[in-house]
């Protein structure tokens, strides 16, 4: 006999008014394994709990069934109670005879019969319960932030300010991301660089922050509290410890490459820094274009460097570091409109540019020192067309989503053109104007008052006629075709997840949605967490956002990370899967199922039969990643992988108990 105790609750009259609780207790007494059964007014009350504890002591009970309200209500209560007894808190089952019996059925006979059945099922299950023990894992008090844009910077600063060590990893040679490319930010029109570069400097100076540029995540092992991350440091060829950033090398370098940072509107040398205020403010060599590295010629930079920083033999290195929490802030890119919109010239017209290129044009530290000119001939454009929703909200050709920030930066662009080019005319083609932010609608209003002409409709075609760009489209408010002869066309293109974001997230066990945006754990209630414990999301990697939302989310992610890092150790649920390696045939069917990447195949070498060192695959469970859904158990035909607390045999016993 298993020495099971059954305790039937009256729940005041909630239960007892419909269910004959005495009959339920009497029936329980007759069940195999049950050595004691009692009923009481309120089991969850202090005296009720004491009664159970006394019965455990008096009758030597080893397993407990409580017939009461839903386990979602008081399972935790009763588990806590059992901690005070000698009975393991997982040798407990609850028969839900309130929510699923007395509250939904009226006939006392039928309800009592069902209650007895539910108790019988619980008794059958509890007899197969195993004692479980929650384990705790120590937490490495260090965070990794992946991505050095404004989201990553903000998250890193917040975590560092809370007193935790942070490593920030950026794949470009400088942090700063997209925000430093911008000229001014809406709706306040403060200088983007002026507000972001001080933060970058704070970063580099912060005692708790270690900055890793030109780095990538190569591999990740472990889980919440202890991620072992393999960091790949790409070769910079410039000794960053010695270099003072004097710039001699950049001046002398004979190579000219189109600057990505300036969207191809200017050139940069092969030894370069991303932009003048780059952090770290030291150049790196672009190995694809350096003459020395590609053709073993030149070597000028080495000659002019006063400190001998140049090291052509530098190589990529990989090393492991452990982190307790991870913030993913991989940011966004702009969609490649040239591949989607042949009707806009597909890149054949130099004067059709995207929004970021315009930001560089209008930026005082940009290639034109802030003069808005046509890339084709350097002339000042008099008529500018801004086209919104290029790639956004266009499931057929582009992306289905709204990129959120375009309405506002288009208004800002219009404002800047009107301000900088006297007499300029600005036409904005739009589908809708969405301005849901503080002071946004006011800004948009002002732009229109300043003279921007808003045309509702998509531009259907852009073509050249007499040196000008003709934008043709339908004004859907007028209901007729319109044409604008423009000197410059700015396409406000869609944001899309940064290249490689999905793959990087996958390394950490986080997933991306169908569109490639990283998936939050819950769209409403857990917006900065991911399915992977200890991995948080900041900024546009999760979906299109403007700067204030990005910064707010970054602080949110940081708060989550700080909360985790403040703990010394973490308790993990013991109700997770376990593998019986003797039975596991290593087929890997379970591995495919796990949404958390908690399962993997490893080679086991052991003596077996006549083979001294037989190699075979077995499944290993990463206890830190398993969340206990049990979906894998069904894939395992052998039953080698089973879910503790809901093992096959427990559920089967429950089923059997109903029909005997």
């Amino acid at each position, binding site marked *: 006999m298993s*020495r099971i105790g059954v305790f039937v609750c009256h729940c005041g009259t909630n239960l007892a008014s419909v269910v004959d609780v005495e009959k339920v207790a009497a029936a329980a007494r007759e069940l195999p394994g049950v050595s004691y059964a009692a009923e009481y007014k309120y089991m969850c009350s202090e005296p009720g709990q004491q009664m159970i504890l006394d019965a455990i002591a008096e009758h030597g009970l080893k397993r407990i069934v409580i017939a009461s309200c839903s386990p979602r209500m008081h399972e935790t209560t009763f588990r806590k109670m059992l901690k005070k007894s000698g009975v393991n808190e997982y040798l407990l089952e609850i028969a839900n005879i309130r929510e699923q019996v007395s509250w939904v059925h009226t006939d006392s006979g039928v309800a009592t019969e069902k209650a007895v059945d539910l108790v019988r099922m619980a008794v059958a299950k509890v007899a197969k319960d195993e004692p479980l023990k929650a384990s705790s894992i120590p937490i490495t008090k260090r965070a990794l932030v992946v991505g050095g844009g404004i989201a990553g910077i903000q998250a890193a600063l917040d975590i560092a300010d809370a007193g935790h060590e942070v490593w920030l990893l950026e794949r470009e040679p400088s942090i700063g991301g997209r925000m430093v490319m911008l000229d001014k930010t809406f709706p306040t029109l403060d200088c983007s660089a002026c507000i972001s570069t001080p933060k970058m400097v704070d970063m580099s100076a912060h005692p708790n922050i270690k900055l890793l540029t030109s780095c990538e995540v190569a591999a990740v092992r472990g889980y919440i509290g202890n991620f072992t991350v393999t960091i790949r440091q790409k070769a910079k060829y410039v000794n960053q410890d010695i270099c003072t950033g004097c710039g001699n090398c950049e001046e002398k370098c004979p190579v000219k490459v189109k600057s990505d940072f300036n969207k191809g509107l200017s050139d940069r040398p092969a030894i370069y820094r991303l932009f003048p205020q780059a952090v770290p403010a030291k150049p790196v060599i672009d190995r694809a274009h350096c003459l020395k590295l590609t053709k073993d010629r030149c070597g000028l930079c080495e000659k002019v460097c006063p400190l001998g920083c140049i090291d052509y033999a530098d190589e990529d290195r990989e090393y492991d570091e452990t982190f307790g929490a991870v913030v993913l802030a991989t940011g966004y890119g702009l969609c490649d409109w040239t591949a989607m919109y042949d009707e806009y010239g597909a890149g054949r017209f130099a004067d059709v540019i995207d929004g970021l290129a315009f930001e560089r044009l209008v930026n005082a530290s940009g290639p034109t020192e802030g003069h808005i000119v046509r890339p084709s001939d350097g002339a000042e454009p008099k008529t500018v067309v801004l086209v919104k929703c290029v790639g956004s909200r266009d499931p057929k050709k582009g992306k289905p989503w709204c990129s959120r920030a375009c309405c506002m930066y288009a208004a800002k662009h219009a404002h800047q053109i009107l301000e900088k080019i006297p007499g300029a005319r600005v036409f904005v083609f739009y589908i809708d104007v969405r301005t849901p932010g503080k002071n946004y609608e006011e800004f948009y209003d002002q732009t229109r008052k300043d003279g921007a002409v808003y045309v509702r409709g998509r531009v259907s075609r852009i073509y050249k006629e007499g040196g000008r760009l003709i934008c043709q489209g339908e004004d859907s408010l007028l209901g007729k075709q319109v044409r604008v002869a423009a000197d410059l066309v700015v396409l406000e293109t869609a944001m899309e997840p940064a290249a490689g974001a999905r793959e990087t997230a996958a390394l950490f066990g986080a997933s991306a949605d169908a569109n490639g945006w990283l998936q939050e754990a819950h769209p409403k209630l857990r917006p900065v967490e991911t399915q992977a414990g200890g991995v948080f999301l900041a900024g546009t990697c999760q979906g299109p956002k403007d700067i204030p939302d990005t910064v707010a989310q970054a602080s949110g992610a940081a708060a989550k990370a700080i909360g985790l890092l403040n703990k010394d150790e973490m308790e993990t649920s013991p109700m997770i899967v376990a593998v019986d390696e003797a039975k596991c045939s290593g087929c890997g069917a379970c591995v495919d199922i796990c949404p958390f990447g908690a399962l993997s195949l490893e080679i086991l070498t052991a003596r077996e039969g006549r083979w001294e060192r037989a190699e075979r695959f077995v499944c290993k469970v990463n206890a830190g990643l398993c969340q206990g859904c049990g979906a894998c158990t069904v894939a395992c035909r052998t039953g080698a992988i089973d879910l503790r607390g809901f093992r096959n045999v427990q559920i089967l016993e429950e089923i059997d108990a109903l029909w005997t």
Partner: protein
Amino acid sequence: MNAANPLLPAACRIIGITDETPDVKTFRLQTQGGAKPFAPMPGQLAMISVPGAGEAMFSITAQGEDWIESSIKRVGALTEALHELSEGDAVGVRGPYGNHFPVDALKGKDLLFVGGGIGLAPIRSLIRYALEHREDYGKLDVLYGSRTTADLVFKEDLFGNWPQRMGTHITIDVPEDGWDGHVGFVPAYIEEKGFSPKGRACILCGPPIMIRLSLASLYKMGFEKENIITTLEMRMKCGIGKCGRCNIGSKYVCLDGPVFSMAELDELPPEH
């Protein structure tokens, strides 16, 4: 044994449980009517069942006026169910099965009992028999080893009852705080003790590796195969030589065993 149906268990209950080690418990069993289920000879087996969980074969380690005892290690589902039982709980018992230690043939000999881990369980029945029939046997020695002190079974006998009545030599595999007895493996300890094979029989039981090495030691010391006796373990279902699985060649361990001398085992295929 139910004469009409040897597969039918007698309804019994547990009248005492002793925790021997973290995974070994000794169960004292009695019929529901308060009688001894049967009177086994030392070395014989009993099929013990847990109602609703199944049955398995165990050696009987001791018996009294109105009880038998079996010491059971937790290794599988059935033994797990057994370990969960409490005093007063119902079990089924059938038996006794198998042959027994050759108590008559051993008369007049010195006896050396060598056990390892739970292997002392079957031997204990013979030790108790020999102590009860003390005048029939010569010098008695027990040499017993386990991994740690926590794994020593029958501590009451090992440290209480036996030392006064026979040579008692206990060893553990690795040193341990608070243990001032012998440390080392059983085979080495046998050699160290240098028991003379003359007029002495050795009763040996324990894990396979210990048996193998102990045999080597005993042979080296000059023990004859006829004078080394062991008990075998096989998967059993019926206990009455029908179901087939416990055969070694044409012998059934449940009928012709579990007690064999090394000389007898030499005659059988090496399949145990």
